[in-house]
């Protein structure tokens, strides 16, 4: 049961990661290969169209299981583990490079402001004396501190279970678009007014490698010019130093499952938007930065905040340029810190899936006692990110080189897996990378093969030219490979035992939709959502008062896979994992202690509220009995449930929500339209009106409800026509404040006012019942 999003929102989520590369990719590439770097960035962005095509094919395959299972199916267990390690390296590095880069932009701006202020004599002499000149921040260490602050902030948000908002991503991209439009338009004016320097063509003779950018090859061929030695190889090396411009493309697979119907069409549309946007932003801003920023300052001063440098070399007054630079920094901070969050969510999603695949011990996935999140995985990811930030000491170039390792190898493994699956997987595919030719009945995937060849050649050359990345990436991959291998062995033993226990205790039935008849549950049943096996007091409360011979009790666990959970749906045994088994064993023992029968149900979902409401709707439940949330008050829980209820299509039934607090006090809410509870003074007013009206001639037989109908009709007319709308809203706000009732409570009571994103039941939903 998924909450679906439009392709615009999906594109915005991916672009929050992909477009953030524009802030650092060209600076890193130019340091490595010289002034012709922008052409390689443009080339990489064009090539990213083809990588995107591979991801579209990968997402259009109707397979179940996580990334590990799918790659294992194609390449075998060992390569699958290496592939997942590379993907993890990519995700974990996304956070530090984005955080440090955001810090570089902020520190650069602060220093620029100090310089400008000093030039105008605005810095007091005393401050000047303390700093022995113009006050300046240490850019790298300031970046480290800011990156740590952003990472720790998002760590805590993710521990609490941050709701990944596509709305927020869309807003960030809208602001970024404003910046991109100003940047391009202003750059065009600048070029028209003052001309621009040319960007050297991407030929071997224009490439200038440093000792660092040749990595291991610099020891092998000291003092020799590799481009002149090899020609095309030089181009390949330069291409390898520019690939991180397309980092973030893998996020396309992470949003795939959330896309609204028609899925494939929307996936392709999102992919087009992503490709065009990132080409325009990353490609053109790279070209413009070399065209407009003088050579003397571009690398020495602005290498780590190139777009900020571009803002400073626009045509126009300095104050305007400084203001625009401030805007660039704000946008950069928004998008780059968003990428830090995406990195944590993405890594968490991948490791959760790997754990579901049985390659990571279940211990990692154990839910947080209070927030229900996979806190151990989040802690591990953030710890690795913090160590990376500290080890980098704020050096974006080193981080970029390492990051490129993860990016290129995860793309390479993905394309190789897709290539092999063309021959091994004969199931339905929504789309195939063109061109494909058929010879003698065999389809040759020329397009896929071509993309794979470029990726593999780039990944291999990067092994030689990026020494730091190779050492760091290979070490990381070995550590993760060992963790995965040991976990898999432990899990295999545990799974054999668990499988036997499941056969003994639970009869698993798999369905694509939740249907009452198929599950043999009577209408008017009571649905009891459960999450933590230590907090089943609400189940006890329900069983105490329900006679299960008259009314069924359905215990439901929503298997929430949040954004970033992966491109593929869960397989059956992944949904009913160790944790669900323990949870249901406890639920059954509670039911047995009352001598009552309960039905058990696991529902995969991205949003727990939608899952509860959709299940209650499909099962014709009359009541939902929930425990008290650790994060919300009962009215807030009712509000969330009411909002989810609003988004399911008509016809839909109403139900009563009972929230059982510790100590068995219960808050009751009606979900759906219902007769409101009237205050005593309102009843008296209505009665007084009725007395007066019935004294009028011809109105003797008027009822109380006729007066209510007339009053509401007039209210709706005044409110809807907009005549007294503002006044009505003001009055209502005053009433709400006077009665001391919080807004969620009022909305929960009068559930009709919220218009959330549309929600649909997922055809792939697979409940299980014992």
């Amino acid at each position, binding site marked *: 049961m998924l909450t679906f999003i439009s392709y615009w929102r999906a594109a915005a989520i991916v672009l929050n990661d992909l477009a953030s590369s524009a802030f650092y990719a060209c600076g890193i590439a130019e340091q490595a290969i010289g002034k012709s770097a922008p052409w390689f960035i443009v080339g990489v962005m*064009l*090539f990213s*169209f*083809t990588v995107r*095509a591979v991801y579209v094919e990968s997402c259009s395959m109707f397979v179940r299981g996580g990334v590990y299972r799918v790659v294992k199916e194609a390449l075998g267990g060992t390569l699958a583990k290496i592939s997942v390690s590379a993907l993890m390296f990519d995700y974990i590095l996304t956070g530090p490079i984005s955080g440090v880069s955001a810090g570089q932009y902020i520190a650069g701006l602060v220093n620029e402001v100090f310089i400008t202020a000093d030039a105008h004599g605005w810095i007091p002499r005393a401050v000047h004396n303390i700093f022995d000149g113009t006050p300046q921040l240490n850019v790298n260490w300031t970046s480290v501190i800011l990156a740590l602050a952003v990472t720790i902030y998002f760590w805590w948000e993710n521990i609490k279970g941050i709701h990944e908002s596509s709305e927020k991503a869309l807003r960030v991209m809208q602001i970024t678009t404003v910046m991109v439009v100003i940047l391009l338009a202003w750059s065009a004016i600048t070029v028209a007014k003052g001309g621009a320097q040319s960007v050297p063509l991407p030929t071997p003779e224009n490439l200038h490698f440093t000792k660092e950018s040749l990595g291991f090859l610099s020891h*092998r*061929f000291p003092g020799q010019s590799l481009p002149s*030695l*090899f*020609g*095309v*190889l030089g*181009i*390949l090396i330069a*291409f390898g130093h520019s690939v991180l411009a397309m980092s973030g493309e893998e996020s396309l697979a992470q949003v795939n499952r959330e896309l609204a119907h*028609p*899925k*494939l*069409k929307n996936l*392709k*549309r999102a992919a*087009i938007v992503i490709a065009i946007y990132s080409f325009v932003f990353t490609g053109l801003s790279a070209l413009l930065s070399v065209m407009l920023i003088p050579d003397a300052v571009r690398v020495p001063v602005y290498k780590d905040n190139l777009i900020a440098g571009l803002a400073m070399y626009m045509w126009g007054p300095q104050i305007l340029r400084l203001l625009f630079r401030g805007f660039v920094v704000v946008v950069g901070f928004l998008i780059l810190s968003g990428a830090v969050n995406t990195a944590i969510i993405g890594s968490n999603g991948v490791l959760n899936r790997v754990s579901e695949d049985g390659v990571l011990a279940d211990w990692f996935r154990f839910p947080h006692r209070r927030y229900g999140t996979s806190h151990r995985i989040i802690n591990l990811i953030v710890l690795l990110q913090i160590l990376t930030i500290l080890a980098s000491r704020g050096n974006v170039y080193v981080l970029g080189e390492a990051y490129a390792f993860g990016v290129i190898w995860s793309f390479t493994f993905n394309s190789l897996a897709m290539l092999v699956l063309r021959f091994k997987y004969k199931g*339905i*595919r*929504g*789309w*195939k*990378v*063109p*061109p494909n030719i058929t010879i003698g009945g065999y389809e040759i995937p*020329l*397009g896929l*093969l*071509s*993309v*794979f*060849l*470029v*990726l*593999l*050649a*780039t990944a*291999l*050359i990067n092994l030689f030219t990026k020494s730091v990345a190779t050492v760091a990436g290979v070490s990381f991959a070995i550590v993760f490979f060992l963790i995965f291998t040991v976990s898999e062995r432990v899990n295999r033993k545990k799974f054999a035992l668990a499988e036997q226990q499941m056969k003994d205790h639970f009869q698993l039935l798999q369905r694509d939709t939740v249907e009452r008849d198929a599950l043999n549950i009577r209408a008017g049943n009571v649905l009891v959502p459960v999450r933590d096996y230590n907090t089943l007091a609400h189940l006890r409360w329900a069983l105490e008062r329900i006679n299960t011979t008259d009314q069924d009790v359905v215990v439901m666990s929503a298997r929430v896979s949040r954004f970033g959970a992966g491109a593929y749906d869960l397989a059956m045994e992944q949904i009913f994992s160790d944790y669900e088994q323990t949870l249901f064993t406890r639920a059954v023992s509670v039911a047995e202690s009352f001598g009552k029968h309960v039905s058990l149900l696991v529902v995969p979902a991205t949003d727990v509220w939608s899952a509860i409401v959709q299940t209650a709707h499909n099962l014709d439940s009359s009541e939902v009995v929930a425990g008290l949330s650790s994060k919300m008050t009962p009215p807030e829980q009712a509000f969330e449930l009411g909002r989810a209820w609003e988004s399911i299509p008509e016809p839909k039934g109403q139900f009563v929500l009972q929230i059982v607090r510790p100590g068995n006090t219960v808050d009751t809410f009606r979900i759906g339209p219902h007769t409101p509870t009237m205050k005593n003074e309102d009843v008296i007013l209505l009665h007084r009106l009725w007395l007066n009206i019935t004294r009028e001639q011809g109105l003797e037989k008027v009822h109380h409800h006729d007066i209510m109908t007339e009053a509401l009709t007039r209210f709706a007319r005044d409110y809807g026509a907009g005549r007294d709308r503002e006044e009505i809203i003001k009055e209502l706000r005053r009433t709400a404040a006077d009665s001391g009732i919080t807004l969620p409570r009022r909305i929960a009571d009068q559930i009709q006012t919220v218009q959330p994103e549309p929600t649909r039941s997922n055809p792939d939903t697979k409940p299980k019942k014992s």
Partner: protein
Amino acid sequence: MPLVVTLVARLLETMFVIGSIGSVAVLVLSGIEDLKTLLGREESEHS
């Protein structure tokens, strides 16, 4: 320069060049499909 290094270098160059030519074909063909998708002329959800 050792023969092995030259061979590896030539192999990587060949992979890169052949792959790049094929990738241009992917770019053009998927670009045409993208245009159709954007203009709403795509025929069916699944091929």
